[in-house]
């Protein structure tokens, strides 16, 4: 799966947690999930669970703790998919 595909799928996935959906239209890998998109910080837990389900992977707690930007999540997902594939 290409990075852009993961990015697009993840943006769709977090849409329901984002108060100002318009901000998602200009989102990049550097967009901060809590600070820029104003997602309730407690919802990060649900976003990770949803990502695990959507990509059929497991994101461990230490990786989850490092997540700040969309790029952080996309990179974790990409890494997990690569490990799974190999």
């Amino acid at each position: 799966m290409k990075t852009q595909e993961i990015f697009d799928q993840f943006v769709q996935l977090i849409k329901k947690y984002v108060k100002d959906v318009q901000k998602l239209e200009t989102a990049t890998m550097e967009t901060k999930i809590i600070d820029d998109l104003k997602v309730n910080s407690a919802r990060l837990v649900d976003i990770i669970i949803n990502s695990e389900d959507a990509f059929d992977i497991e994101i461990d707690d230490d990786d989850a703790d490092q997540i700040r930007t969309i790029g952080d999540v996309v990179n974790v997902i990409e890494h997990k998919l690569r490990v799974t594939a190999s």
Partner: protein
Amino acid sequence: MKNRVVITGMGVVSPNAVGLDNFEKALRCGKSGIRFISELEDLKFSCRIGGVPKNFDGIAKDYFGAEEQSGLSDNIAYASVAAIDAWQDAGLVQAADNGHPDWDSGTIFGCGICGMETIAAKVVPTVNAGKVRRLGSRIVEQVMGSGVSAHIAGIIGLGNQVTSNSSACSTGTEAIIDAALRIRAGLAKRMIAGGSEGASPYTWGGFDSMRVLSRKFNDQPDKGSRPMSASACGFVPGAGAGALVLEDIETALARNSRIYAEIIGVMVNCGGQRDGGSMTAPNPGGVVRCIRGAINDAGITGDEIDAINGHLTATFADPGEVKNWSAALERGPESFPYINSTKSMTGHCLGAAGAIETVAAVLELFRGFVHPSINCEDIHPEIKPFADRVVRTCLDYPEMKTMAKASFGFGDVNSCLILRKYEQ
């Protein structure tokens, strides 16, 4: 000098109607909200009927976004809808998301067996399966004792006291009393008071096992809730929420709001599980003291009570309750006030009961009618002397001025409100 407390807004999610107008129509025509619940049959309950608000998911879509609704238990969703409706009915607006809270307004909003459906359906199976991390972020807010009041405060932007009470089947009435006392004391100008309860076999199972639920009318659900009837055989479990905006009269008058009624007397107490009282049965002396306490607080006499909205659940306790009212008011069958039971139509909504029934009582007082108590055509032998005062067809009563509402709960707890029609 205590501040006077008036009711300026109401909202209701009841088994027989959602919304004030629908509720009033349902009350007037004696519409039952009780229906057969196949899940209870599948689970081998003795009682297979219940009072559950109809088409609620569709209604809730108008109040919550999809993501927000997905994280709400029925209990919290019922309470939130009732509270939003009450706030709007009072002509008030919610604080903007990016604005400041309303420091003068708060809520006391309780439930009886809070969060049980979430605990039973999500928490226990998920944790037992070793998948605790999959519970997500929205479980605690649903199962915490103050989940209901916390959600209401967040939606409306309340900045005064925000808490949830719990006193079994007395919860809803107690919440109204506690909120009224806060306004009286000058600690808040406005409070949303109420109670709610979710619909769940896990909530109702313990009652079924105690054999206190109606089990002889599974094939006639609308006949199943029979307060004051000779053939009453237990209560029908129900769910829903009632909410009332209580307000300092000065504030209400200053903003020229409609006033439904004034709360002139309040009392809560406990029979101490002594003198015939127990965890599950009321001490008659405690009940009488509670009713008299509310009347004394109102500064009136028992003669001034025009009608009673009773607790009256359709268990063996109904005749005792009528006798207690009679003793407390010092009025025998010949001079007894009118009496009815909203539960005859809604079932027993547990923590929501007192709030839903107070909404009914206030509507009756404001509009000048007494709703029928259905399914008591065969009046209980011990209540027979009072039969003429049991309202069985809707009664126009525009001159009615004062109503009493009481609730009683497990733990031998009692609560009583005296409501008076507001006249300038």
